[in-house]
C-alpha cells in the first residue's frame, strides 16, 4: 500500500510547479527582454494596444473555459462572431436598418445566446458530441453570414459605438472595461456559486456526479449559452474598431481561444483549470505578435506567430498529460 506524500511538499514547490507561475514568469521574461531591445514596448500606448487586443479573446475564453471544464468543446465561436457582427452591422448601420443602439445591442446579445442554447440542446438532448455539433455550426454559421451580407461589406456603424470601442472612457477602450467585468463575473460563478462548483464536479467525474444526483442538462446548457452570449459581447466591443465588417471576421478565432484555454492549464478531459491561468495565457498568446513586431522581425512575424502559438499548445498539452499521470497515481489504489 503506497502512501502518497504529495501533500507534504513545500509551499514553494507547490507554487512554482503550477501552470500560472510558469506563464507569469514567461510573460515577465519576454517583457523584460523586449523592453531592453526597444523601450518603447513599455509605453502606455503600446500596453493599451495589447490590452485591447486581448479583450475579445479574454471575454470568450471565460465561456470556453467552462465548456472545456465540462469535457466538451465549442469550435464555432469564430463563425458566431462573424454572424453576430453581420447582424449587428445590419441592425445598426446607417446604410442598413439604422436601428437604435438600445435595440440593436440587446438583440445581438440575444442572438449569440440563442445560438449557444441551440448548441447546448443538440449536445444534451440530441446527444450529438459537441465536436461534431460545433464543427457543423462552424461552417453553417459562416455560410449564413455570407448570405446575410449579400456579398457586400457593411460600414456606417454609429460613431458613438466606434468611439467607445477605439478610445473608450477615461482612455481605456470599452473592450477592456467589459473584459474586466466578465472576468470578475466568471470568477464569482466559478468560486462562489453552486453552479460553478457543479460544473467542475461534473467534469471531474461524471460517474460520481450521477451518484450525487447531479443532472448534466442544466450545466451544459448554461456553459454553451454563456459562451454564445460572451461571443456576441466580444463582437460588440471589438468589431466597431474595424473600418468595415467583412464576412471573414473571426476566422480561426476559435482556435486561438481554445489554445489559450488549454495553455492556461484547463485540462481537455475536464474538471480542472483556473481563470488566472486562462487570463495569463490570453496575455501571452496575444502579446506574441506585437513582441515580434518590436523585435523587428517584420513581415515574417505573421508566420512565426502561428508557429510559436502551436508550439505552446503542444507543450501545454503534453505537460498536462505527464503531470496528470503522476498526480493521479498508478492503478486504482
Amino acid at each position, binding site marked *: 500500500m503506497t502512501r502518497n506524500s504529495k501533500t507534504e511538499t513545500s509551499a514553494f514547490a507547490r507554487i512554482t510547479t503550477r501552470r500560472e507561475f510558469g506563464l507569469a514568469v514567461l510573460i515577465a521574461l519576454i517583457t523584460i527582454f523586449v523592453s531592453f531591445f526597444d523601450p518603447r514596448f513599455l509605453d502606455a500606448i503600446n500596453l493599451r494596444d495589447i490590452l485591447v487586443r486581448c479583450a475579445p479573446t479574454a471575454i470568450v475564453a471565460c465561456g470556453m473555459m467552462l465548456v472545456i471544464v465540462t469535457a466538451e468543446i465549442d469550435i464555432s465561436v469564430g463563425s458566431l462572431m462573424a454572424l453576430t457582427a453581420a447582424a449587428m452591422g445590419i441592425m445598426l448601420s446607417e446604410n442598413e436598418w439604422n436601428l437604435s443602439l438600445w435595440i440593436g445591442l440587446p438583440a445581438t446579445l440575444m442572438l449569440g445566446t440563442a445560438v449557444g442554447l441551440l448548441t447546448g440542446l443538440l449536445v444534451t438532448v440530441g446527444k450529438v458530441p459537441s465536436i461534431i455539433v460545433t464543427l457543423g455550426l462552424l461552417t453553417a454559421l459562416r455560410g449564413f453570414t455570407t448570405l446575410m451580407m449579400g456579398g457586400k461589406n457593411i460600414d456606417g456603424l454609429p460613431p458613438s459605438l466606434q468611439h467607445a470601442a477605439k478610445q473608450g472612457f477615461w482612455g481605456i477602450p470599452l473592450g477592456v472595461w467589459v473584459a474586466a467585468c466578465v472576468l470578475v463575473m466568471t470568477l464569482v460563478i466559478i468560486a*462562489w*456559486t453552486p453552479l460553478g462548483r457543479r460544473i467542475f*464536479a461534473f467534469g471531474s467525474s461524471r*460517474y460520481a*456526479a450521477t451518484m450525487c*444526483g447531479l443532472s448534466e442538462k442544466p450545466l451544459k446548457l448554461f456553459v454553451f449559452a454563456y459562451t454564445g452570449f460572451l461571443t456576441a459581447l466580444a463582437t460588440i466591443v471589438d468589431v466597431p474598431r474595424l473600418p468595415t465588417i467583412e464576412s471573414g471576421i473571426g476566422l480561426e478565432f476559435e482556435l486561438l481561444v481554445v489554445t489559450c484555454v488549454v495553455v492556461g492549464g484547463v485540462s481537455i478531459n475536464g474538471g480542472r483549470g483556473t481563470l488566472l491561468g486562462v487570463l495569463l495565457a490570453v496575455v501571452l498568446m496575444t502579446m506574441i505578435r506585437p513582441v515580434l513586431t518590436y523585435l523587428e522581425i517584420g513581415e515574417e512575424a505573421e508566420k512565426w506567430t502561428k508557429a510559436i502559438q502551436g508550439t505552446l499548445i503542444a507543450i501545454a498539452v503534453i505537460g498536462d498529460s505527464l503531470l496528470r499521470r503522476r498526480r493521479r497515481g498508478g492503478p486504482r489504489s
Partner: protein
Amino acid sequence: MMIHSQATQSDRLLLRIDRINKAYGGVQALQDVSFEVGRGEVHALCGENGAGKSTLIKLLTGVTRPDSGSLVMNQGALPVGNVRGCEAAGIAVLHQESTAFPDLNAIDNIFVGRELRAAGGFLLARDAMRREAAELLEQLGESIDLTVPLGQLPLAQRQMVSMARAMSCQCQLFIMDEPTASLSAQESQKMLMLVNQLKEQGISILYVSHRLEEIFQVADAVTVLRDGQYVATHAVEDLDDRKLIQLMVGRELDELTVRQTISQPKSDETQKPSTLKVDQLSRQGIFQDVSFSIAAGEIVGMAGLVGAGRSEIARAIFGIDSYDEGTVEVNGEILPSGSVARAKHVGMAMVPEDRQHEGLVLPMSVQNNLTLANLRDLQDFGWLSQTRERGQAKRLIADLDIRVTDPRLPVETLSGGNQQKVVIGKWLASMPNLLILDEPTRGVDVAAKAQVHRLIRELADEGMATLMISSELSEILTLSDRILVIHQGRIAAEFEGATATQEQLLHAALVGSAP
C-alpha cells in the same frame, strides 16, 4: 429460514425489502428477495460474486428501480430510481469504487449537490462549509488538508471524506460496500471502530463484505444471498465460518461434487515437463510470490473472489501488464515482462474476461475477428490472402459449431455463447500450447457452455496446457485437474480437482487458507 427476531417489531424496524425482482438484460439479478434491517443494527450482507449484492445497493440508493417489489423505510416507501430522494430519505453509501471527485477538494466532495448557501441561495456559504467539513473529519479522527484535490490524497483518506459526506447527510442507513477492500490491517481496524461509532449514534449499517473475520467482529445479523435469491438471515451469534460458507455455497450439493464425465482428467502421475512455470511473480500491491506450474495436457483452475488478483496474474503472465519480480517460463524459455508479442511467439494465447471490449472487434465481421490473432500466417508476400482467411474462418466455424448465417456479418450480432466461441477460435488458430482462459463461460447460455467445456477438455487431452480463471466454482471443479485458490494476491491453497469441494474452495477464497 430464520428471520432476525429484533427487526420484526415495527418500531425497531428501519428498512423492509419486500419481494424485490430485478433483471438486467435477460439475467435475473435479484429474484423475490425479502429481508429486514433493524434500527441501530449492523447488518452484514454476504454472497458470492454475482449473488446480487451490487444490484441491491443500486436499488437502495436510487440508481435503478426494481422491476417489482417494494422498499419501505420508516414505514414510508423509498422514492425508487431517485438518487436525491433516497439520500433525503436517509440512505447514504460508501461505494467500493471511489465516487470522489478527484479534482475537487475535501470540502466540495462533501457538499457537492447539497451545498450550503448564502445570499438568498445564489452563492456558496464557503466558510460555513469549511467549518462543517473540518468538524466532520475531526469526528472521524482525521486531519486532512482541506485544500488539496482529493486525487492527491491516499485512498484511506478519500474514503474518510466519503464517510464524512455520508455523515453530513444525517443518514439513518449507511451502506458500506467492501469498505476495507483496499485498506491495510490497521486502517481496516479503524474503519471497524467507526462502524461501531455510527452504530452508537443509532445509525444502521448495511455492511457488504467478503471479510468474514470483520463480519464476525462487528455485525449483529447476517443476510446471505445466492444467485440473486435470498437464502437466510441469522444473528451473528448463531453462525461460524463453516456455517456461513455453507449458506453461501448451498446445501443441495453433496460433499463431493458431481463431475460430468466428458473425459476423465489425467490420473497418471508421470512427471510431465511443465509447459508453463511461474516463479515468485510479484507486482506491488496487486499480487505477491505467485509460483506454480502447468504441464502439457493439464487444466489448472484459478478460483478466488473478484479483486483477488487472478486476472491481474493472468495478464502479467501473458504480457499485457508488467510485473516487478519473478519469472515466467514457457517450455524452458524465460519470457521478458510486458511483451505480448513474445508470449504469442512461444505459443501462449489468452481469452480475456471482457470479450466485448478485449476479445472482439464488435463492428468487424465474424470472419475478420476469427483471423485477427494469426494474420501473419495468412499472408502471401505481405498481402493478406482473402481466400486463406475465408478458409480458416470456415474451418473454425465448423469445428466450434459457431451459429452464424453469414461469416461476413458483424460479430456483435452473435449471441454471447457464439461470441465467446469466436474469441476462443481466434486464439486456437494461432496454434498455442498454453491457453489462458478468463471467465470462459460468463454470459454464455447453457448449451454453449457445455460445448465450451467439452472443447476445453478435448484440447487438454490433445496436449494443451490450460490456465482457467473462473468465479463459477462448479465450472472449476468440473474441468480442473488442479485448483489454485487466490486470496488477496497470493496463492492461498491448492487442491486436487478430483477431490476438492465447493466449500473448501470458498473457504480458501474468503479466509485465505485451506479449511
